[in-house]
């Protein structure tokens, strides 16, 4: 992975830029000391690191605007940061950039149950949003697995999803309004507490733009009444093909589970060794969860298990209690931890049409042999969002590069079968150079034109999303 060379002209004016920033923000919000800046050298994609020129953690929208205005005038690139949990390197700095983090902006500004909305500053964590309304029977639906730590700002930047998006959608489907600060310091209000924003769907294009169009400082989010209950069923199958066919049949039958999770044998085994969830010894495992009242759950599970039985499951375990439900989810939820115990791993999140699942898993198995690296698959099967975990040894020279190459081949395969490079983690730097596999020059040009409108000087998170070569002329201008 290549990052653009630091611009010496910007490095040369570091002290002036810092002086100007110090004049507009509170001293404790400006970090210039090298040891402290080091904490911001990477996000959750820890293989790439770089210490930024300075870090600013402002406390208000006005401060954000003042900071951006200065950086705009000085031509300094700005890398936005939420909680730094990006798996794609979305907030990886460059040496000549300023990190602008919203971590101090965590206020809840309005909770309104009649309108079913909450207005927050975007530094608040995903789980705290639900925490704010939970005791009144509401929740915020998008639930990325990092929800304890990740910030709403990052969720909006990456259009984060989660295990339950088959029913509730992803961030973009639950976002009603934002306060956005453009690179030149202009503050823009888009949408609000009403269901559809006026004019062009700017909200739609801002969500998922990876911090390249502006800094979102406040957001109005939809909150939903909590379902009465939820219960999973676990089923094991002899082959990935059969499990895939079962998923398809469940969907066709008109049941809409809130989650359908899929695990393959290597993953089942690792989770079992790690968490002892009592998973069966089989090729493929599905966890299907439904919601509603007790009767509704029973009825939906009856439909689902009837379908499953037609596919001769080696195991079919309907949860009968809260405890059993927890146990069924335990293995799945510890999948990443289990893999981390075995080795270093790289997690991809390409999405495929559900019908291509058996083919893609078979090809990944073959490639695993060719590359000599093990892969385990966990998968949001309802929406086709894969999560192949490629195991490698970071201490072994050449292993990371081999792993990256293998990862790229898997993502190309996802695109080839009609899917995409990333379903929820975002492009960042990780998949930036693969964008031309999925998109033509005209496709990328159309996207870059949007950035031209919002950030004509290409100063916001400039070296992300688009292949460096494709964005070179714009970044240099």
């Amino acid at each position: 992975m290549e990052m653009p060379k630091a611009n010496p002209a910007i490095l040369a004016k570091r002290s002036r830029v810092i002086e100007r920033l110090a004049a507009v923000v509170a001293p404790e919000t400006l970090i210039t000391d090298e040891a402290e800046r080091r904490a911001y050298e990477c996000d959750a994609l820890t293989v790439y690191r770089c210490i930024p020129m300075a870090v600013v953690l402002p406390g208000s929208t006005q401060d954000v605007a003042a900071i951006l205005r200065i950086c705009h005038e000085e031509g300094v690139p700005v890398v936005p940061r939420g909680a730094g949990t990006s798996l794609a390197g979305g907030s990886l700095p460059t040496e000549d950039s300023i990190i602008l983090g919203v971590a101090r902006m965590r206020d809840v500004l309005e909770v309104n149950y009649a309108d079913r909305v909450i207005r927050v500053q975007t530094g608040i964590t995903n789980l705290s949003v639900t925490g704010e309304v939970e005791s009144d029977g509401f929740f915020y639906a998008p639930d990325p697995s990092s929800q304890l730590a990740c910030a709403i700002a990052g969720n909006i930047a990456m259009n984060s999803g989660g295990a339950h998006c088959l029913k509730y959608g992803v961030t973009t489907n639950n976002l009603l309004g934002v306060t956005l600060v453009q690179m030149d310091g202009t503050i823009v209000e888009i949408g609000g507490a009403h269901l559809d924003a006026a004019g062009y769907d700017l909200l739609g294009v801002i969500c998922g733009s990876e911090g390249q169009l502006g800094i979102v400082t406040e957001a109005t989010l939809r909150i939903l009444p909590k379902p009465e209950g939820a219960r999973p069923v676990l089923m094991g199958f002899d082959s990935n093909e059969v499990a895939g066919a079962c998923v398809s049949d469940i969907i066709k039958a008109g049941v809409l589970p809130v989650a359908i999770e899929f695990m393959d044998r290597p993953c089942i085994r690792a989770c079992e060794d790690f968490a002892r969830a009592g998973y069966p010894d089989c090729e493929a495992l599905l966890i299907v969860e439904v919601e509603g009242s007790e009767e509704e759950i029973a009825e939906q599970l009856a439909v689902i298990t009837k379908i499953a039985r037609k596919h001769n499951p080696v195991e079919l375990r309907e949860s009968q209690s809260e405890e059993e439900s927890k146990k069924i989810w335990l293995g799945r939820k510890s999948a990443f931890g289990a893999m981390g115990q075995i080795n270093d791993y790289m997690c991809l999140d390409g999405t495929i049409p559900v019908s291509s699942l058996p083919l893609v898993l078979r090809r990944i198995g073959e490639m695993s042999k060719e590359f000599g690296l093990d892969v385990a698959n966990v998968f949001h099967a309802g929406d086709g969002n894969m999560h192949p975990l490629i195991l490698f040894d970071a201490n072994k020279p050449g292993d990371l590069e081999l792993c990256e190459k293998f990862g790229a081949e898997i993502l190309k395969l996802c695109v080839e079968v009609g899917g995409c490079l990333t379903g929820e983690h975002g492009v960042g730097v990780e998949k930036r150079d693969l964008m031309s596999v999925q998109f033509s020059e005209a496709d990328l040009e159309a996207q870059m034109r949007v950035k031209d409108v919002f950030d004509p000087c290409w100063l916001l998170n400039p070296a992300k999303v688009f292949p460096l070569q494709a964005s070179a002329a714009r970044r240099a201008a």
Partner: protein
Amino acid sequence: MRPANEAELSEMIRAAQAPLRIVGGGTRDIGKPVAGEALCLSGLSGITLYDPGALTVVVQAGTALSVLEVALAAEGQRLPFEPMDMRALTSADGAPTVGGMVAANASGPRRVQAGACRDSLIGVRFVDGAGNTVKNGGRVMKNVTGYDLVKLMAGSWGTLGVLSECAFKLLPVPEAEVTLLTEAGDAASAVGVMSRALGTPFEVNGAAWGRDGRVALRIEGFASQVSYRRAALIRALGGDWAVLEGAASKALWTRIRDVKDFADAPGDVWRISVRPSDAAEIVARAACPVILDWGGGLIWALSDEGTDLRARLGAIKGHATLIRASQATRAALPVFQPEAAPVAALAKGLRARFDPRGILNPGLMG
């Protein structure tokens, strides 16, 4: 002009020397009247790919919506967002097309629970104002690869590009539906009931207040689920409720969706989007017949011909769109809510880049 496929569409736009008026089925003729040669999309027709097991469909933009709906119904599936048919209001002859529906981001009563058209739209292909063919999104539900131009195209009324193909996420058609009806004397009490209903876990997916002064709440699902929820909802809300099932329930929601109660009444029709708790105040200011949908978040207002209803509403947190009016009124009044300067600048910037020659429905949105 009537291209037979995307390549011809691209050629025609590239070669165009003068403004074009983009036409799907011709049933959603709103906005500032556009002068220009008609570019008719009916040649781009047919379902490209339908994968019921993945709840997704890919369809050519000029395809008649009815053709798509019949194909989906055959597999027990549907578009989740219940798109409005504007023919009742506009008395247009044509047949609504998929592309027209997307260009209008047409979303009906179920929007409160299932999202808008833009939420189910997962991929597009379009030709921009310079004739470039662009694809964005795809045919998978979860996709964050690059910027989401899919959403940008939804509701852009053909001013940023001409759609050639659209992909949607679908939902199964539920086994049963039921509508509960109760009297509500004014907008405030109607919104109160609807807000409480939408705040229950019983998945109310339609909440409207009609000209007959009755609040209607819709529940869908498996038959036993619907009967459970119906009882639970009535228990939670209290009061007297009448019940409509099956065809009667369906007919009521079609009437609400298509604003049929204003179809034959003279006057302009406005569509006002607000937060539900502001609805009663806005209804009072509008001082004209209204229908509430989306739990009060959507107000349909029937005002005297040629009046600037926006002036009467004053500053609102939301927006008002003039849906039905004479050509003269549409030329005189802004059809879409005037935007704050920074937003207007972004919109103008996008138009300039996607349609540099200003030939796609010029002026329609501003």
